[in-house]
């Protein structure tokens, strides 16, 4: 059934290695070395997909990464499936499966094809114009639009492959291994530059490697033969690393480039396992040599998108490199000599070429003469006005082109064909160049954008730098290499180049048809179905900026990023608007040059490595004892310890009661700890905290509040004076890193004269907080030789002691209001300390409690949590903590801001306690508070910041910030909820033990 269009064995195709693969469920055969595209073409399969908007049948158009049509789904319905892969880049392997996208039920019969006939109703901006009214219907429209949009299917199970990132440093990075890239890399490496050469293909040599045009000679050899010898010589050059199947995705500032190295995509499934699939190379290069080549342009004419219509250069590559004829009856359509090279290539292989249609009036180059000799019919000054064939091209209609190129005349000639090669000239691949921030200029003569102003150490060589003829390429490459690398001689100095290439070209951006434009379909962006008509409509509707036209028409917004049609879009806009292309500018080429997989982007940062987390030394104990955990910053903190299937509420109620009635223990290791030393340490603390520190005695602790310069509370914690010039500061768990950063900032930039040294010791100490009326007895059992009397070791003081041979620092401080001790030991002893406490506390029913109980206990005491009861807009005065703000100190961070007119307003939101009239109702944190229910709009007075059911008070309690709350003690307010209004009363935020008797309580 299937036809075989293999024409001649190619050295790049291993015909002894036959490979079977499936496309749209049907089995085909190809050979090792084939891409999916070349293998399909060898089987005479052109129709591979449907277009995005009109669902028109589309075929393989190119042979490289610029492919707009042949985008397919690889290995559908497996966990390795990948959408939007270009068939031209997939190397086939045994067992490969691929399928078309954007068609249903099949690519041969696609229901969506009806859009093609409805196309008059789908102009540019169709969605914007149609789905505007009524606005409330958008959600319904969106549902259907999303269903019909989108290409391909994302995988539904997790990716089995491994991805990797690697940092790479080199002196010279050469991007592209065509003739220019190879010669550049060779000369750089030979001159002792550490050189990296990358190319997206699996073979080196670019298009020159199959260049057998008899009119081009380098040292009397064909360019292909000569380059093979050069490539052979690359082996063994020191300082040169070569990476193939490696595509540079992005070129950022400071010569930072990202490249994706494909390692297993070309392998059979059984060889993919446990290997790195793709590696993202993060390259820092001192110099970059771009040798990215040029992309052939199509021509824009009516119905220029049928399967069988391809780039002329692609047809040549398929025949020369893959040994595949793309059709049996080939026709070329051109505006320059390139198509003649392709035609000659086919002719030499015995493939039938019916005709060449050239929009130029004539050309006298040797290659054209040669074609004339072969008898292939050439139609000068003709243009294609229409094509026919729904799923495969079957004929083209041509007419004579007027002298000015704007219309066609005479009678129509129909030429039967099954493959059409179009050659619209070449565009330098300047995508990476512009990504680097460098600027282009338009060359009016060559009609191309060329590199102009470099922003970093880089050069563009070969055709991406605007040299298209082999003699120009070699000459300018030599010159640029010497200049840029500062070298005196190269191996290019003495080579002899002969060429007969002509630059003659007739550029017409939009070719005329015998039909009016409105009745034609000249596609500019194949993937997004944007036609010349759409672009002209956008201009008629007032769009002028190229960026706006792009977005309105979606030209250049497909996965191919307009690699083929962008120049024509610009040309049509310039012609229509009557401006010069140079003045119009280009759209921005954004990274990535070719799409990256998500796997490559995230590398190893998946699963457990997605975000780092920190565990305390006691973590294993918490896990063994079935704690539930919560994330606090990067820490995993024990949240509560449910017993016998308790709910969180039940566990927290039990833990809270136990801590007040007997003894509780909390893992407080996550609190930030900063060691502060130096002769100005006391002065430093005076400046960073709101209260005074100079008079704090050695061995005493003090609570401090830290503000931002704007007067808002930033952090809090207890700081202990360990010695004359030595303090240990604690910070909130989440704020530790920022507090250290802020303190260092002030020390280095504002007060460099202070003799102060800061060291983060958060990870060096483990902390167990022992609390409750039995805490003293438990501590006594662990440390028998320490006098724990209130006289010797009162609240807010510090002792050093030993537990066996383990040194520990004990602070008698309390965040629960109970008699309590914070025991700090070297981190590695943390778990031992915890177990000792549990053992000693057993007879007192010591109860481990987590962060939730800690929050509840402190709320009973009205202690704030920075970040929960404050939000960056609360001053100490707003928190009713005036007592901690020193009136005597001349200055501290944030002091001046406390006297700004705004911070002194009486009606600021202030921290208050709230009690619900029904003691069993627990308010929701974040709930709004109002004083009037019948107002419209209702004035929001504030919101609930902390709310719990207190087992010790047997009622619901809450903290809240309320506008002018300070003066509202006893006032009735409302918390309106969805189904009911909750009556609340403003109360003292200290709900429990207002006289602080519990601090010394013991049983």
């Amino acid at each position, binding site marked *: 059934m299937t036809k075989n269009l293999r024409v001649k064995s190619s050295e790049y195709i291993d015909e002894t290695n036959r490979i079977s693969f499936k496309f749209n469920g049907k089995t085909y055969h190809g050979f090792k070395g084939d891409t999916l595209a070349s293998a399909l073409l060898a089987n005479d399969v052109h129709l591979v997909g449907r277009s995005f908007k009109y669902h028109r049948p589309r075929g393989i158009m190119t042979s490289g990464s610029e492919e707009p049509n042949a985008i397919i789904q690889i290995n559908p319905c497996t966990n390795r499936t990948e959408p939007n892969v270009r068939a031209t880049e997939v190397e086939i392997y045994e067992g490969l499966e691929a399928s078309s996208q954007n068609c249903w039920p099949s690519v041969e019969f696609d229901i969506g094809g009806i859009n093609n006939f409805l196309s008059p109703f789908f102009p540019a901006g169709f969605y914007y114009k149609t789905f505007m009214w009524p606005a409330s219907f958008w959600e319904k429209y969106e549902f259907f639009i999303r269903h019909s949009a989108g290409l391909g299917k994302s995988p539904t199970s997790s990716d089995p492959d491994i991805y990797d990132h690697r940092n790479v440093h080199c002196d010279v990075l050469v991007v592209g291994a065509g003739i220019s890239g190879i010669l550049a890399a060779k000369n750089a490496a030979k001159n002792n530059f550490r050189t990296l050469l990358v190319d997206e293909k699996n073979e080196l040599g670019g298009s020159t490697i199959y260049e057998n045009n008899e009119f081009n000679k380098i040292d009397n050899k064909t360019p292909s033969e000569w380059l093979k010898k050069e490539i052979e010589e690359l082996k063994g050059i020191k300082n040169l690393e070569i990476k193939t199947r490696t595509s540079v995705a992005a070129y*950022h*500032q*400071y010569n930072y480039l990202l490249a994706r190295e494909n390692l297993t995509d070309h392998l059979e499934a059984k060889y993919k396992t446990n290997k790195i699939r793709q590696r993202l190379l993060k390259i*820092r290069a001192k110099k970059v040599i771009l040798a990215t080549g040029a992309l052939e342009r199509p021509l824009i004419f009516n119905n220029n998108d049928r399967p069988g219509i391809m780039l002329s250069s692609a047809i040549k590559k398929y025949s020369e490199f893959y040994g595949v004829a793309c059709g049996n009856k080939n026709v070329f359509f051109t505006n320059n000599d390139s198509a003649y090279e392709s035609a000659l290539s086919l002719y030499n292989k015995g493939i039938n070429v019916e005709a060449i249609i050239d929009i130029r009036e004539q050309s006298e180059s040797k290659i054209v003469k040669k074609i004339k000799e072969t008898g292939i019919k050439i139609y000068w000054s003709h243009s294609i006005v229409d094509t026919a064939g729904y799923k495969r091209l079957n004929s083209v209609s041509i007419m004579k082109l007027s002298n000015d190129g704007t219309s066609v005349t005479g009678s129509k000639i129909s030429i039967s064909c099954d493959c059409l090669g179009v050659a619209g000239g070449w565009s330098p691949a300047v995508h990476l160049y512009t990504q680097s921030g460098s600027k282009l200029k338009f060359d009016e003569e060559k009609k191309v954008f060329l590199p102009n102003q470099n922003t970093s150490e880089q050069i563009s060589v070969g055709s991406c730098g605007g040299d298209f003829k082999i003699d120009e390429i070699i000459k300018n490459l030599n010159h640029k290499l010497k200049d840029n690398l500062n070298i005196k001689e190269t191996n290019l100095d003495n080579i002899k180049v002969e060429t007969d290439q002509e630059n003659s070209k007739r550029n017409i951006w939009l070719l005329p048809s015998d039909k009016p434009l409105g009745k034609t379909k000249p596609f500019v962006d194949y993937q997004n179905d944007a036609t010349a008509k759409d672009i002209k409509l956008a201009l008629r509707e007032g769009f002028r900026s190229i960026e706006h036209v792009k977005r309105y028409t979606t030209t250049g917004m497909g996965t191919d990023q307009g690699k083929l049609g962008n120049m024509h879009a610009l040309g049509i806009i310039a012609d229509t608007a009557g401006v010069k292309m140079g003045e119009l500018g280009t759209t921005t080429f954004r990274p990535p040059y070719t799409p990256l997989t998500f796997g490559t982007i995230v590398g190893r940062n998946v699963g457990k490595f997605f975000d780092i987390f920190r565990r305390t030394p006691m973590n294993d104990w918490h896990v063994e004892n079935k704690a539930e955990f919560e994330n606090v910053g990067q820490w995993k903190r024990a949240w509560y310890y449910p017993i016998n299937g308790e709910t969180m509420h039940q566990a927290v109620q039990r833990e809270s009661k136990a801590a007040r009635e007997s003894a509780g223990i909390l893992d407080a290791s996550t609190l930030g700890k900063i060691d502060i030393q130096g002769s100005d340490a006391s002065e430093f603390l005076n400046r960073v905290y709101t209260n005074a520190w100079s008079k704090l005695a050695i061995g005493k602790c003090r609570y401090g509040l830290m503000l931002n310069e704007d007067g808002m509370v930033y952090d809090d914690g207890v700081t202990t004076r360990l010695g004359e010039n030595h303090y240990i500061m604690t910070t909130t768990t989440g704020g530790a890193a920022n507090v250290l*950063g802020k303190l*260092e*900032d002030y020390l280095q930039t*504002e007060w460099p004269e202070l003799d102060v040294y800061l060291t983060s010791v958060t990870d060096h100490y483990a902390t167990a907080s022992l609390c409750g009326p039995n805490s003293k007895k438990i501590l006594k059992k662990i440390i028998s030789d320490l006098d724990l009397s209130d006289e010797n070791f009162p609240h807010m003081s510090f002792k050093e002691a030993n537990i066996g041979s383990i040194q520990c620092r004990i602070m008698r401080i309390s965040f629960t209001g109970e008699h309590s001790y914070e025991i700090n030991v070297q981190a590695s002893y943390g778990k031992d300390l915890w177990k000792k406490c549990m053992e000693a506390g057993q007879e007192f029913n010591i109860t481990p409690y987590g962060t939730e109980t800690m929050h509840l206990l402190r709320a009973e005491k009205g202690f704030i949590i920075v970040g929960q009861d404050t939000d960056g807009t609360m001053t100490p005065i707003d928190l009713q903590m005036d007592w901690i703000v020193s009136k005597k100190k001349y*200055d501290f961070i944030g002091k*001046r801001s406390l006297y700004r007119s705004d911070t002194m307003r009486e009606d600021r939101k202030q921290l208050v306690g709230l009690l619900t009239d029904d003691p069993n109702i627990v308010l929701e944190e974040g709930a709004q508070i109002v004083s009037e229910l019948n107002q419209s709009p209702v004035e929001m007075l504030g919101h609930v910041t902390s709310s719990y059911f207190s087992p010790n008070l047997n009622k619901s309690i809450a903290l809240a910030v309320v506008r002018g709350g300070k003066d509202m003690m006893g006032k009735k307010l409302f918390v309106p909820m969805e189904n009911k209004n909750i009556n609340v009363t403003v109360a003292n935020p200290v709900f429990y033990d207002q006289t602080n008797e519990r601090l010394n309580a013991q049983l």
Partner: protein
Amino acid sequence: MFLINCPYCGERDQQEFKAGGEAHIERPKQPTELSDDEWAEYLFMRKNIKGVQFERWNHAHGCRKWFNMVRDTSNDEIKAIYKMGEKPPAQ
């Protein structure tokens, strides 16, 4: 991604650094003697120039030192780097 020449460590990748806003805004020595407007000027007002800008940077994942940078915000060219306390280079 910039390549930043830390004056203490040498060239390092931008991801090791933290930007710290406009440079050469000195904290007033006697804040209490300033009017609300003068204090607000120090506290809130920052330039956001398209062009040459003086900035503070911190080698947060390195030596943790703060330093100054002159950067052209229009093309991200780093024109100069100098230590805290040193005079900015002449324009």
